């Protein structure tokens, strides 16, 4: 079968690329979930990056700092990598090593990479890029509901009568879901959009709340307070299914509509209307993304949404729920597979006795019960952290405060970069391991609504390229041999999946490769007869008490606010045509459609600066400056400039600051203070 799963975003569109020689003739989409024949520009026209001239085609090693990378055989490179890792482990112990599996790789590969970290290196310094996107959501959802994923399936969009979309530019970042929601709105559903920018969703909304950047939390708390005041909350639900209500309720005192209007800039009548609509529409689903999470109060904001949904009884019901739209193709899977510092596969806490028993039995190794460092903390911990095994990620482009990060990487004694394409981080590597692209291997991805779907080998890897699972397995084999620890060697991804099923019978027990032939299956799926759970928490939450918990959260100002020298707020994000660090999309046909950085500038700000549309401009923060083309548009509100972060030659993350959320440790990508300077 020529069918596989699109490697871009978390929608997990099924694609059928027609490949001839070294090019893709066309990409069609089959009429099965989740996309039912629809695609976006990336899936349709952006899948040709595996044919890019920037492919890494053979392993390389740097014998010592300062020396150039030189071509090596697999044998040489893997031996070298293993030796260096063992050396750090021997000298400094497990805490000096970190492994970052990739949310772009398959479940099987993530599983193997975190297993290598835990079983062979004994470290829980395991994390992935969700740290930079939805870690705030997963933190809030986990502590309140005991589970971190969309509570409702995408099919529920067709049953939803009101969408509450907060900080999600869905039509550009999850275009196929955006199209589904818009169609449902055309069929008569309402849509409240909370966003400072006039996005495609705002355009399609029935009620747009244009909040000032970073004030969503205040708005959400005010909505909750108003619902309580009006008696529109679901008393029976709150009593039967939640705890912590009284304390939380008391915490809302200060969040009046008047204060909300003053702070968010949204008329209080509109806030009241939104509150009434959300409270009184039974099938009301909340959808959100980075606009909520990428703040120093990201966890608190996500929590405010959770609180609001619990207050109105929206969780565990069809057509409603709490639905964080996941970014990467396999970011759901990466979390599921335990690519996190505090949990093992299946979200078992590393310190949990039952978890330790279960995984020690399965892996036949004692496990480290102490949670590890999170990704942003690992980089901070350099050079205490001496070695990083980095898979499929370009932190130089994606982490905040780029110059600071580069300085850290320069001081990192040993870095393994395993990737398909050369990127901004490759120059810092001591070992480069060329990996197979999504077209060149088998495996599974798990999409945003928990659907495990097949990835299929449709093309032989070029050069000496090998799939990530093979590379990790071979590296593991060397480490295991030296350490005298057990390490199972598999012939292919299906074998690894079988081990995952064995590890997580309640979650994945019913999902096997033959079943995935036809279409994806959603977890939890405990048996082969089970269809896969659509709506989570119908009867109980996955907490010890079975109840969901309210947590009081409070508004705080962003870490950096505009000043005289830096009077504008910079918000970063993505555009339709590009993907994250640009490694994939800018090496595909997409590059032609959107070749350079454009920053959105409100016409009023442009006028003050004497800036015209299309004119080059410098964007300057306390941390650096980049050059961009000004796009003068009222999509962005006055006082706010918006810059996508895909462009290595003009990296928006040179400007952002590394202020972190205290709980999720996510950086505040959505708010930093900048000014614009004309280019002479």
């Amino acid at each position, binding site marked *: 079968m020529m069918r596989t799963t699109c490697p871009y975003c978390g929608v997990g569109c099924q694609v059928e690329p027609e490949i001839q020689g070294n090019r893709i003739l066309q990409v069609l989409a089959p009429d099965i979930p989740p996309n039912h024949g629809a695609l*976006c520009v990336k899936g*349709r*026209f952006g899948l040709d990056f595996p044919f890019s001239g920037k492919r890494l085609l053979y392993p390389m090693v740097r014998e010592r700092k300062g020396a150039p990378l030189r071509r090596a055989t697999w044998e040489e490179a893997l031996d070298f990598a293993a030796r260096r890792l063992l050396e750090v482990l021997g000298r400094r112990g497990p805490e000096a090593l970190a492994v970052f599996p990739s949310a772009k790789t398959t479940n099987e590969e993530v599983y193997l990479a975190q297993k290598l970290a835990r079983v062979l290196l004994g470290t829980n310094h395991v994390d992935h890029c969700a740290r930079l996107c939805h870690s705030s959501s997963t933190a809030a959802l986990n502590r309140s509901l005991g589970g971190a994923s969309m509570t409702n399936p995408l099919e529920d969009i067709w049953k939803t009568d009101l969408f509450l979309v907060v900080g999600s530019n869905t039509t550009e970042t999850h*275009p196929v879901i955006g199209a589904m929601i818009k169609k449902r709105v055309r069929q008569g559903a309402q849509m409240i959009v909370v966003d400072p920018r006039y996005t495609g969703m705002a355009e399609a909304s029935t009620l747009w709340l244009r909040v000032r950047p970073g004030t969503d939390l205040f708005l959400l708390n005010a909505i909750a307070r108003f619902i309580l005041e009006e008696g529109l909350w679901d008393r029976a639900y709150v009593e039967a299914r939640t705890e912590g209500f009284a304390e939380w309720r008391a915490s809302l005192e200060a969040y009046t509509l008047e204060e909300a209007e003053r702070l968010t800039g949204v008329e209080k009548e509109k806030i009241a209307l939104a509150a009434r609509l959300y409270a009184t529409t039974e099938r009301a689903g909340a959808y959100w993304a980075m606009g909520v999470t990428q703040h120093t109060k990201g966890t608190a904001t996500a929590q405010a949404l959770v609180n609001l949904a619990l207050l109105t009884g929206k969780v565990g019901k069809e057509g409603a729920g709490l639905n964080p739209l996941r970014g990467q193709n396999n970011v759901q899977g990466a979390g599921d597979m335990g690519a996190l510092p505090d949990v093992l596969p299946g979200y078992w806490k590393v310190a949990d006795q039952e978890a330790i028993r279960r995984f020690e039995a399965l892996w036949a190794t004692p496990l480290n019960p102490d949670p590890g460092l999170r990704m942003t903390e690992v980089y901070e911990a350099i050079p205490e952290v001496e070695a990083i095994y980095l898979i499929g990620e370009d932190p130089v482009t994606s982490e905040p405060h780029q110059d600071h990060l580069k300085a850290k990487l320069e001081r990192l004694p040993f870095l393994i970069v395993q990737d398909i394409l050369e990127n901004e981080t490759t120059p810092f590597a001591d070992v480069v391991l060329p990996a197979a692209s999504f077209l060149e291997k088998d495996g599974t991805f798990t999409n945003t609504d928990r659907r495990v779907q097949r990835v299929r080998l449709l093309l032989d890897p070029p050069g000496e390229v090998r799939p990530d699972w093979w590379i990790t397995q071979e590296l593991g084999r060397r480490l295991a041999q030296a350490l005298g620890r057990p390490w199972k060697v598999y012939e292919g991804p299906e074998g690894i999946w079988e081990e995952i099923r064995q590890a997580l019978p309640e979650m994945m027990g019913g999902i096997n490769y033959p079943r995935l032939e036809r279409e994806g299956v959603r977890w939890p799926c405990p048996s082969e007869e089970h269809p896969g759970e659509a709506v989570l928490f119908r009867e109980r939450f996955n907490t010890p008490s079975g109840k969901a918990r309210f947590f009081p959260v409070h508004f705080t100002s962003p870490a950096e606010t505009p000043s005289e020298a830096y009077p504008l707020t910079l918000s970063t994000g993505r555009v339709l045509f590009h993907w994250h660090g640009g490694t994939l999309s800018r090496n595909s046909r997409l590059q032609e459609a959107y070749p350079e950085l454009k920053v959105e500038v409100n016409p009023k700000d442009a006028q003050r600066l004497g800036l015209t549309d299309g004119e080059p401009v410098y964007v300057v923060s306390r941390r650096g400056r980049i050059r961009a083309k000004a796009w003068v548009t009222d999509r962005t509100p006055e006082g706010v400039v918006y810059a996508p972060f895909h462009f290595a030659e003009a990296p928006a993350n040179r400007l952002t600051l590394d202020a972190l959320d205290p709980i999720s440790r996510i950086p505040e990508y959505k708010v930093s203070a900048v000014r614009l300077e004309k280019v002479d």
Partner: protein
Amino acid sequence: MRLRVNGKEVEARPGALLLEVAEVPTLCHHPHTETRGLCRLCLVEADGRLVPACATEAREGMEVRTETEGLRTLRKTLLEWLALTTDLAQAPDLLALMERYGAEPERWGEVPRRRGREVLKDNPFYLRDYAKCVNCRRCVDACGDGIMGVYALTLEGRGLLAHPTTPLDRPLPETPCVFCGNCVQVCPTGALRPLSLEVG
């Protein structure tokens, strides 16, 4: 629910379209666009009336005929007219249907061509070749109400001259087009084609 198709009794679920219970050729119908009932290739005789199978629900006891002499003539003729006016070179399904219905387009003599229309290449992803367009509107609907809600395509003109165009006839990059290519996927005649298919 039971009905008869070409004399044979068949079972149908309530609400099923005749298209689902009877095998008939289609062209404009697509499960994910709302276009239906335009091309008339799927017309059948239901209880003596001509109805489009793609837009007619089966009813208990209905008597359906799919290949009467009149229907065969209609399909044959329509296909002949399409072949005379439109470039069907990249519409293999239609060419197969022409074979099946014994189409002989030349019997109609001289017939006006669809005004055509040089190939439009105005973006990095796909081209528009309206000499091949039969005006089924699947692209327009995929772009608009049916799937995307983007509305980068609309229709120009009336009658045989009608064909898809963009708002204000602008090049696609100057329209709301998001280049999802869903229009390309639903195009049955190769009027919309990915540039990646072009040699060179």
